[in-house]
């Protein structure tokens, strides 16, 4: 893990798609990580900067020309010729300004979009390289949010965020620089503005942040309860609780209103606006004093005042540009948090790799999640190749965790698990997993054709093999009932399958990959007996000839298992064959009585 190739322990992409070591070495700090990414597009950064300077400089040219025009009108012999020339200059500079501003905008846009693309890419490849343990512990919704929203925040951080920050900063710099044209002392007003602007802005953002958080929270509370009340309207009405819910909603709505008003008050007071007005009138006064002393002329006053009007842009933009930048950094931090999370399962590439027989034993196994919650304790049992073990217990009794120890999704804390007489940790991990299949409770299917979904574990399988697998899994019949049969597309824009149908597709996948050990987390239920017949057939057939661990609520599966484990609170409280359990366990007997 120290060789810098840390991230692809489980899976390696071809060189071309890997994240460069240089960027990876910047992952400890969000700002430098963003900078490292952005540095690849330094030329775009240069265009943006040049565009920003040019844009502001040429924007400043307008008041300067107007000042000259004023002087021409007041003193020149043939003012109209001068004016004509000036007018053409204004047209020329402003058209060039448009081009430069476009350059600034579009290069910022390109940087932003490329950052979004690159960072999402880096994030995704990093996710692919993470262990199964990692993916089991990380809620999918959370990962999703980071891969879409947070990545987008980094995009917005550049465009419009940094684009406007850089762009508007130049609108403060230009008045300072150009005021020297007229009188060095005139730089005072814009310089004072710069200093006070930074202070006022800092204060404003500092004051606003906790309030916007409070607004968001208040809205979250309002919205969550509202959604619950509307979704559960039947329950609300059934319990005659409409008034109660309306009162609660009123309370939440009032609280949200109060927070919104607080935010509005801070925004209303926006000091940089006052500051701008003060500086503009102060600057005007300054220029007039110099004029009274004969140090500048009328055109200069006009030009200078025009330059001070440029300060309006940074004042206006600061209402949102800076928070956009800080949102981007926060987003980067959240992404890095996941990228930097390491998982310590080692691949053991030199480990044991032989065709698996499927003999399995747990010896004094303990396991606790990283948060300290102990889920399984002192588990001991043995399974002979080809046998079926039913694991029974209430939700939270540790059934699923126990099953996931078998393919090393998690590693035991104490004790050991042995397959074919070899400790799991001495197996080559890839070889081990190839011969074990897990069918989870929530079966994930891709928005592809049914055939592709079945063949997911063996893409090279032909249609005949796929059909055979589906037949064994009792899925062929319902697949044929779709108009496009095996080419039916699943998912949002396609057909939606019931839980039982999904499960049978997953079983078909397993038939195709033919693992030696099958772990089935079964939580479907059948409304009618005919479907139940099919599911029973599919499960019995899948268990045939391979070691099977089945977590189930189905009494028939429990009844006919070779070995039954009853879990409670992470411990085995009863175990044995059906006949033995009927003798020894009153709780077990109870569930088999009518």
């Amino acid at each position, binding site marked *: 893990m120290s060789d810098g190739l840390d991230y692809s322990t489980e899976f390696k992409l071809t060189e071309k798609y890997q994240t460069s070591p240089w960027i990876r070495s910047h992952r400890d700090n969000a700002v430098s990580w963003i900078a490292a990414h952005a540095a690849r597009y330094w030329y775009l950064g240069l265009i943006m900067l040049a565009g920003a300077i040019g844009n502001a400089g040429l924007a400043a040219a307008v008041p300067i020309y107007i000042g000259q025009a004023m002087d021409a009108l007041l003193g020149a012999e043939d003012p109209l010729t001068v004016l004509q020339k*000036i007018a053409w200059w204004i047209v020329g500079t402003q058209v060039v300004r448009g081009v430069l501003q476009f350059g600034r905008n579009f290069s910022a846009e390109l940087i932003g979009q490329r950052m979004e693309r690159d960072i999402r890419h880096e994030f995704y490849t990093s996710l692919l390289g993470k262990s199964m343990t990692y993916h089991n512990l990380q809620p999918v919704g959370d990962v999703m949010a980071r891969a879409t929203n947070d990545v987008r925040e980094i995009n917005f951080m550049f465009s419009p965020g940094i684009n406007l920050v850089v762009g508007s900063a130049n609108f403060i710099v230009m008045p300072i620089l150009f005021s020297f044209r007229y009188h060095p002392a005139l730089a005072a007003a814009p310089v004072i503005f710069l200093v006070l602007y930074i202070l006022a802005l800092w204060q404003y953002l500092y004051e606003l942040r906790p309030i916007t958080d409070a607004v968001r929270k208040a809205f979250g509370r309002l919205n969550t309860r509202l959604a619950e009340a509307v979704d559960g*309207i039947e329950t609300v009405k059934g319990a005659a609780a409409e008034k109660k819910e309306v009162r609660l909603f009123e309370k939440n709505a009032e609280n949200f209103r109060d927070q919104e*008003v607080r935010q509005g008050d801070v925004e209303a007071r926006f000091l940089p606006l006052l500051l701008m007005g003060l500086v*503009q009138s102060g600057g005007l006064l300054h220029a007039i004093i110099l004029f009274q002393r004969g140090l500048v002329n009328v055109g200069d006053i006009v030009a200078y005042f025009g330059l001070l009007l440029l300060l309006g842009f940074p004042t206006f933009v600061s209402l949102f540009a800076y928070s956009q930048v800080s949102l981007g950094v926060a987003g980067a931090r959240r992404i890095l948090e996941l990228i930097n999370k390491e998982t310590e399962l080692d691949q053991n590439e030199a480990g044991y790799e032989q065709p698996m027989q499927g003999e399995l034993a747990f010896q004094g196994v303990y396991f606790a999640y990283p948060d300290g919650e102990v889920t399984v304790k002192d588990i001991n049992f043995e399974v002979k190749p080809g046998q079926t073990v039913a694991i029974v217990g*209430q939700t939270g009794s540790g059934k699923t965790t126990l099953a996931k120890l078998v393919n090393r999704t998690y590693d035991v804390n104490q004790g050991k698990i042995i397959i074919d007489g070899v400790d799991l940790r001495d197996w080559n991990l890839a070889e081990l997993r190839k011969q074990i299949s897990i069918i989870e409770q929530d079966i994930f299917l891709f928005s592809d054709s049914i055939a592709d979904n079945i063949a997911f574990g063996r893409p090279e399988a032909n249609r005949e093999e796929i059909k055979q697998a589906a037949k064994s899994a009792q899925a062929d019949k319902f697949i044929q009932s779709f108009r496009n049969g095996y080419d039916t597309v699943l998912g949002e824009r396609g057909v939606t399958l019931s839980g039982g149908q999904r499960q049978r597709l997953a079983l078909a996948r397993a038939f195709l990959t033919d693992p030696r050990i099958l772990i089935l987390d079964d939580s479907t239920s059948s409304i009618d007996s005919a479907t139940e017949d099919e599911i029973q057939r599919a499960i019995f057939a899948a268990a045939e000839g391979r070691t099977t661990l089945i977590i189930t609520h*189905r009494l028939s599966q429990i009844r006919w298992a070779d070995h039954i484990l009853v879990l409670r609170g992470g411990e085995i409280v009863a175990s044995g064959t059906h006949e033995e359990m009927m003798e020894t366990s009153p709780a077990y007997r109870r569930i088999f009585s009518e």
Partner: protein
Amino acid sequence: MGFFSGLDTEEYDREYGDRELISRIFTYLQPHGKRIFWISFFLILVAGAGAALPLLVSNGVDRFSQGPADNAVYLLVGLVLLSTVINWGGNWVRRRLTVRTVSDMTMTLRIDAFESAANHDLSFYDQFSSGRVVSRITSDTREFGKLVVLVTDLIAQLAQALILGIILSQIEIRLFLYVLGFLPLLFVISLAFRKLARKVTREGMRAMAKVNATIKETVSGIAVAKNFRQEQAIFDDFHQANQESYQMNVQRGLVLSMVFPLLNALGGIGTAFLVYVGGINVTQGLVTVGSWYLFLLSLDRFFFPVLNLSAFWAQVQAGLSASERVFALIDAQPAVVQHQQIVPERLSGKVVIENLDFRYEEDEWVFRDFNLTIQPGESVALVGHTGAGKSSIAKLLARFYEFQAGRIVVDDYNIRDLDLIAYRKHLGMIAQVPFLFSGTIADNISYACGECGEEEMLAMAKKIGQGEWLDTLPEGLQTQVGERGGQLSMGQRQLVALLRVLVQHPSIFILDEATASIDPFTEWQIQQALDLVLEHSTSILIAHRLSTVKSADRIVVLQDGRIIEEGTHRTLLADDGHYANLYNTYFRHQSLEYIEESRDLV
């Protein structure tokens, strides 16, 4: 950034007229009349101060044009200072008042909307998905608030432009007409640009939705891909989607990046034109240098209102559509109407349904001339295929829907004469998917009864499987159940829902039994809890479990809204009629015989 807002709003067919909507909006504005007066006052004050600035400065220019001026110019500077302070201070006060008005208004509107949603019967929710109702109450009301802010902001800008416009036209009408002539051009160009921006935004959104779906899927699918070692395949999908997303966004960015540069260049050309043409006027002595400068300073102040105006109409339309959606929610007529508000003291639980006609939709009768009598304390299981009318009986009894003919009598009360809130306090109901609210288990158990003590709840909870299910929860009754009860298993949710009914001691119990798979140990506890409820209440059970059917006093077999068989499990099975058929279809696999024989299926 008014120009860029509302690019992604969808079009919406309106049913209310503009006039009607606006008068509705006014009823919500009315209570804030005083505030609105002050908002308008400050709005005009600010507009005046904003217009004063260029006037003052140009006035100063005239004074200087002949060399150093008297000290009156310092007064002028003082006035400039004053105008900027008024500008800021007036805005401050105006914004404070506006945020209060808007927040209060949206709050009132929200509460009205929710109250009306809470009082609608279920036929309303059949028409509108809960997601749509929620978005009307939260986002559409927010759009409504934005509409008000938008209008006041634009009025402020227009007022300033108007004041300036009047003054400029007084100074030199021809020059002013030049400026005015320039504005429609600007308006048309911004309008065209907005149309283009809207087009690329829509296209981008559509493409992005597709790309996002792929990204969602490839992220969710990682675990499966790893299970089968198919990382390369899933990476290829991701990579392609990520690239497409990039290309779409760059196209959109290209259009949006052009807007301000183009408008700025255009503004520059306008300025150049004014510099020259205005200069001619000065040399002809038509206007002073100061006025010439005033025109130049004012140009910007016409520029922005026009720009915002180009986006205004679309935004107003979006805002009006949003308010219409909210008003439609408030105005929807409830179908269930009570004739009297009788508050029953106690109900024995006798139910008589006589000559009932009922349908959800036109021409699709669920019941014609339906009759059923249930004795106090009796438990009746309703069985039949989907669509036979099982749930409809439960929903009519709960008065969630209006029926078309016949009558339902509970004890001796006509169901239409009862006070619904009082009546439903005597009803215990469990929906097919038991619904819990975020909060603790105790909150949920006491949801229907309000003042149940912790002790009573605990005593009840302990009656079920010796309270073992509570021991498995980290904090017993005080365990948080999570949003919609998501932290609990389906079985636990059913137990909580049953306890909610148990502590309520209802006269009539209506159960739409869950079909979800539950572990056999929890199942046994649920059966215990159910037996406890059945003991004390008249029960109507829409049964999906064999044990529930067996425990009912009477089984009523329904087909197409008609009762075709009645009896107990044993007698009906012996008759070998329709029930025996249903048993083979829905219940056979739950029997012990089936379990014993299942091995032979293969």
